[in-house]
């Protein structure tokens, strides 16, 4: 602890002052490089070839966050929220891809195979967005321009697919009072009842993601985007569902089989008509922190049932590269690999039945009385029998709040900080709890609401 405070600030000060130096050195190098690189630096290119986009950020299939928690106002139900299309700028229209299947998968046996899949598919009701983008000056058109409808299907292996919602209303992008007047009403219109109990919401919402900037930088330093201040007021498109626990539990019995695992995938139709999985998200930060950069695309296309045999998922979790980076950056020490603790947290769930370092029967499907075929898979695991905490702690399980992340994930959990601390050894060992100030005033961009779908109205 003392060592931490003693070393870190100097490290940072050194880093800051070397920045100036490094910039100077950089500028000199660049100037020198301009001469030494020779013809390559010249601004001349040949033109008689076919030149198509090579880098492309595919945001419609980009799942930013997944939440799963016991509904605080309806404790016999579970709410699952998957957020797609992140960093939406207010007043601009965004739409789901009509050639993509957006899935929420529930695994109640721990086999990595989904027992239940909720699948959203979309249809355009107006023109697709690009034609609108081109006519931004005419944006004051009818609301229907940006509207989509969705179909929600429930898939279970060995049973016929069940269409839960047909032509459901998608809460459109909030384009301001001229184009989408009475937005509160549109939000209400997008909350639909499911046959057999439960609710679904599909549409735009304020991005509930928040975290400590420092935690984000440390955990993700050198990864995807240069610093985007966390808690920046932007919007996402949410797929939210609230269903009775009995519907998700193995054998319909949440008392005997209380644990479920959740992940979301997006699959796009290729030219041959087949749908190919292009994105996968279970535990927050798992792909971008624990999986090495070169294999992240691969993870996005993998099914959980293949995790154990992949040579990637288990191995990367046991010996995460990023732990060494954070050690270097922050001057702290992470436990030596193999990291049985991380394996238990992310791949099996916490249980005493596998002899892992975390001795707590918390959220592994092995706790389900009737489960069989268990294998190591990466999913967001929720024990539906954990009672709702009256005053949730943002660091969840690390602070003894057993209903919090990594036992599912609530909208108020600061998962980045929790993941950082778990990467550094908590809760199995002492870790580095002081690295992120626990009293930091990190906050939700927009306050969540007390009832389904909980996510706030889009920000402006």
């Amino acid at each position, binding site marked *: 602890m003392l060592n931490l405070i003693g070393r*870190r*600030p*100097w490290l*940072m*000060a050194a*880093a*800051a002052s070397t920045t100036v130096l490094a910039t100077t050195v*950089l*500028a000199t190098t*660049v*100037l020198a490089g*301009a*001469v*030494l690189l*020779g*013809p390559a*630096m*010249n*601004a*001349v290119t040949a033109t008689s070839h076919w030149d198509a986009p090579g880098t492309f950020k595919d945001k419609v299939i980009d799942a930013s966050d997944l939440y799963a928690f016991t509904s605080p106002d309806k404790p016999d139900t579970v709410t699952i929220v998957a957020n797609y299309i992140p960093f939406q700028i207010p007043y601009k229209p965004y739409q789901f891809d009509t050639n993509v299947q957006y899935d929420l998968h529930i695994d109640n046996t721990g086999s990595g195979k989904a027992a239940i899949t909720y699948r959203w598919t979309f249809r355009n009701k107006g023109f697709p967005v690009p034609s609108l983008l081109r006519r931004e000056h005419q944006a004051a058109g009818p609301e229907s321009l940006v509207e989509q409808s969705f179909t929600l299907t429930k898939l279970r292996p060995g049973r016929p697919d069940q269409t839960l919602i047909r032509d459901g209303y998608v809460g459109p992008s909030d384009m301001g009072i001229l184009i989408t007047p009475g937005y509160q009403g549109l939000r209400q219109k997008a909350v639909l009842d499911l046959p057999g109990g439960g609710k679904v919401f599909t549409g735009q919402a304020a991005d509930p993601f928040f975290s400590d900037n*420092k935690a984000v930088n440390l955990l993700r330093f050198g990864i995807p985007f240069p610093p985007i201040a966390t808690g920046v007021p932007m919007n996402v498109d949410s797929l939210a569902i609230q269903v009775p626990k009995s519907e998700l539990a193995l054998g319909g019995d949440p008392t005997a089989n209380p644990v479920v695992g959740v992940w979301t995938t997006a699959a796009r139709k290729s030219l041959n008509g087949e749908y190919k999985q292009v994105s996968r998200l279970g535990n927050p930060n798992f792909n971008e922190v624990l999986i090495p950069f070169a294999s992240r695309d691969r993870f996005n296309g993998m099914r959980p049932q293949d995790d154990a045999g992949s040579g990637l998922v288990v191995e990367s979790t046991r010996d995460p590269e990023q732990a060494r980076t954070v050690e270097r950056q922050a001057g702290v020490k992470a436990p030596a690999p193999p990291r049985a603790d991380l394996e238990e947290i992310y791949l099996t769930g916490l249980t005493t039945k596998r002899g892992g370092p975390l001795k707590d029967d918390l959220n592994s499907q092995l706790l389900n009385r009737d489960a069989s075929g268990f294998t190591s898979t990466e999913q967001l695991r929720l024990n539906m029998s954990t009672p709702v905490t009256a005053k949730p702690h943002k660091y969840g399980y690390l602070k003894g709040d057993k209903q919090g992340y990594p036992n599912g994930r609530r909208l108020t959990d600061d998962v980045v900080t929790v993941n950082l601390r778990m990467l550094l050894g908590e809760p199995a060992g002492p870790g580095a709890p002081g690295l992120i100030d626990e009293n930091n005033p990190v906050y939700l961009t927009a306050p969540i609401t007390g009832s389904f779908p909980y996510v706030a109205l889009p920000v402006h």
Partner: protein
Amino acid sequence: MIGVLAAAAVILGAHPLGNMSVNHYDGLSVFLDRIEDTAIIDSAEIPTLQQRQGASGPPDAYAARACGELAGAVRGQVGEQPLAWRVTSAAFAYRPGAAGLPTSRLTCRLAAPLRVERPVTLTFANPYRGGAVGWREITASGSGVRLSASSVPTRSVSGELHAYPADLLSSPLDVRQARFTVEPGSGGLGAPARVPGADVLTRYTALLADRLNSLVGSDRLTVPLGLLALLVSLVLGAVHAALPGHGKTVMAAYLAGRDGGPRDAFAVAATVTLTHTAGVIVLGVLLSVSASIAGETVLGWLGVISGLLIAAIGTALLRSAVVRPASQHGAADGHAHGHGPAQGHGHGHGHFASSGRGVVGLGVAGGLVPSPSALVVLLGAMALGRTVFGIVTVVCYGLGMALTLLAAALTVRRLANLTLTNRLNRLRPYTATITAALVLLVGIGITARALASLL
């Protein structure tokens, strides 16, 4: 080796921005009665060739024609009024480029009449040959007028299209429009007189102030960084006080003339620090709360108040010196100055109605005008949510100022003691009058200068 040299030679020849590029620069200079635009077009090899094909006759004729087209294309507006540009000079020259093909440089000087009698907003746009790829840069400066809220810098980063930055972390400039406010007066953002002509002290202070800003705004403000920021602000404060306009002369003369002793000096220092800190904070809060307050104007008025205050003190001093010359201390007493605390306590009551008030008054006058750099630091810190740290920085800044003033006062006092004992003992009876007159004069001077900057 030869390969490297050959490559370097190729580099020197080729246009750095591509041989299709047409690069534009507009250097705007605003005067009280006109605006001038130095418009430069640096064309790479291919556009030069295209333009040569189209041109007939001597380069001068081409230059005149091209500048005429350019003058017709550029748009300028004062408020709602469009500016009427005319060409005052036109020049065109080829320069050797790559592969034996020339590049070219067209320089047009345009002018348009303008009256700057009150603050006006100027907009400028150059859409001439807007389709071509290339660097586009605009700068704006003023002479005899003050520029503010300018969207463009005062100086060209490309050296007027002579040296394009090759930095990997900057994109080619693409500035096609400019907008700024001009008003009569000098200084302010964009006044050339202040940038190149500034004395060494000011220039280094500016560098230090930048450093302080970046320290306070740094992402990870750690203890060593914080301490460094405080130290820098102390130094900045000290330097700020060393610049003219803070009544140091007054303070020094007053403290030397009065037999106040270090105690008074410290009282002055404390007052200066307090006043300055309070001033900066109040002004900072005002500025961040309301966008309608012009910082420069407030500073000007504070300068006036400060000057008047000093003048008032001078008047009071003069009156007490003239009215009660009889109570003036003798030379014998003068030798005792500073020798003991007891003596110090007893002095001064005869000079001015109340010594405390005079000292505090001077301190207030010295600290009343907030230093712009301290203000900037505070505003920056507030914007980052580091208000408290910003205030601590400003306090240190005030302390720095007080230190300089103290040092100046004590030095003069010492010098005065030495000189007086040796040569000018005969003047001793009149020091109070001289001091008072000096204070009054300086007060009037400061007031006049502050008023001049306001009007």
